[in-house]
């Protein structure tokens, strides 16, 4: 195992993140603030309670997941694609780094980025809404699983894309709609029975519901089910990212 190489790749990814901080770190913070003001404080004051907690408390974990998912996928996919496009990824490909090390490097940096974004939004939640996670182990566990899943998806789409537009396809037609109907703003208990059943097939619902457990201690479905769905998808995506990287898919001729 090339530990120094792996550590260097992780460091490089974080340097990239902070070099484009106005694209990666501040947008989720600003967007979250706006969501909290509009939905949490203004409209939310008219909603009594959801899942037995004040609406603003219910909202915060959903907003964290929203930004973690969006930020992790966006950064991972654009880093891989840009590396291919600018050919700078060749620095990694000619070095003594294995496919496993490359994938771990991108995924670990994705996890660190996700934790950083989550920490900022959590801090906003503490200051503005006075809400704190009840279960920190679950909080970090779910963020890690979700970050693994979306970093791996970012690698997959970063490898497959022929232009930046292709990367946006998953965000526009997959991630954004599924996250918004996945329980960021409402409990699925508010939805008609048929839509509730359909929601169970929405992976984003399980991510948000599992994460919300860490704040409220309750969810719409059993925690084991949500965690199982998220972990299963993370393993699947990681396996595909690893297989493509090991094959040198669109990396090596």
């Amino acid at each position, binding site marked *: 195992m090339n530990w120094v190489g792996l550590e*260097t790749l992780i460091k490089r990814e974080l340097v990239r993140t902070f070099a484009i901080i106005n694209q990666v770190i501040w947008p989720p913070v600003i967007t979250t603030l706006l969501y909290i003001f509009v939905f949490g404080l203004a409209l939310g004051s008219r909603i009594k309670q959801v899942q037995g907690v004040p609406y603003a408390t219910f909202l915060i974990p959903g907003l964290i997941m929203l930004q973690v998912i969006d930020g992790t996928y966006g950064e991972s996919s654009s880093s891989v694609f840009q590396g291919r496009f*600018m050919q700078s990824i060749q620095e990694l490909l000619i070095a003594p780094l294995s496919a496993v090390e490359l994938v771990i490097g991108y995924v670990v940096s994705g996890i660190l980025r996700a934790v950083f974004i989550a920490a900022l939004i959590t801090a906003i939640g503490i200051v503005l809404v006075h809400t704190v996670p009840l279960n920190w182990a679950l909080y970090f566990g779910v963020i890690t699983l979700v970050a693994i899943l979306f970093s791996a998806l970012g690698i997959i789409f970063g490898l497959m894309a022929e232009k930046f537009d292709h990367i946006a396809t998953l965000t526009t037609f997959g991630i954004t709609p599924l996250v918004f109907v996945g329980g960021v703003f409402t409990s699925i208990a508010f939805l008609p029975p048929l839509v509730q059943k359909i929601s169970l097939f929405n992976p984003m619902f399980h991510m948000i519901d599992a994460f919300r457990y860490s704040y409220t201690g309750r969810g719409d479905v059993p925690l084991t089910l949500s965690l199982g769905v998220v972990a299963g998808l993370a393993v699947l995506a990681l396996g595909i990212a690893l297989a493509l990287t090991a094959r040198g898919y669109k990396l090596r001729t």
Partner: protein
Amino acid sequence: MSIPAIRIDGLVKRYGSFTAVDGISFEVADGAFFGLLGPNGAGKTTTINAMVGLSSVTAGSIALFGHDVVRDWRAARVTVGLAPQEYNFDRYLNIRDVLIYQAGYYGLRGPAVRRRADDLLERFGLTTKAKQTYTRLSGGMKRRLTLARALIHEPRLLILDEPTAGVDVELRIELWSFLRELNAAGTTIVLTTHYLEEAQELCNRIGIIETGKLIALESTSSLIGDRSLQDVFLELTRR
């Protein structure tokens, strides 16, 4: 007999039905200055890419200092530094960090690496630009940085793909002098270039590839005799 720096045996590389490299075999001795020449599309870059791991091999084998590039890839890659023709630096790092991070990918870090990065920047006249990204360098500076990056992990084999493309005569002569010194110090060098006088000046052995086949492999002196390399090259590749 010492292990050759490069041993290529029956290398074949196909892209679908197109054969880019068609069963070439040759060896480059440890310490040699080897020129790999050929017209555009002859298979030079494909051969180089196969050596450094940027391209898979359809058939045949490549070993660098006895390490097979597929089976023993990690040991093989440590031995080689590549200076590609295209500028593919990391745009988020300053040029000193480009060198330090590249060393990191090779498993190297610490004060010795930082010193070597500073030495290379000084050797190539880039010290004053150390904190800038490569996008702010001139073409000649970028070319020198390419070479510095390839050398940061002190490879035993240096592969140069058109190292003097687009640089002025003064810098070209300066680079020639540096490459001679490096070779004299024991580094094996493989050079691909379209400047045939450059290959004639620097290389002690030359291989010529055309349409994926090796059509000449000799010492420079026996290949050209009393003619110029350009005449010989044109005669061989126009057949």
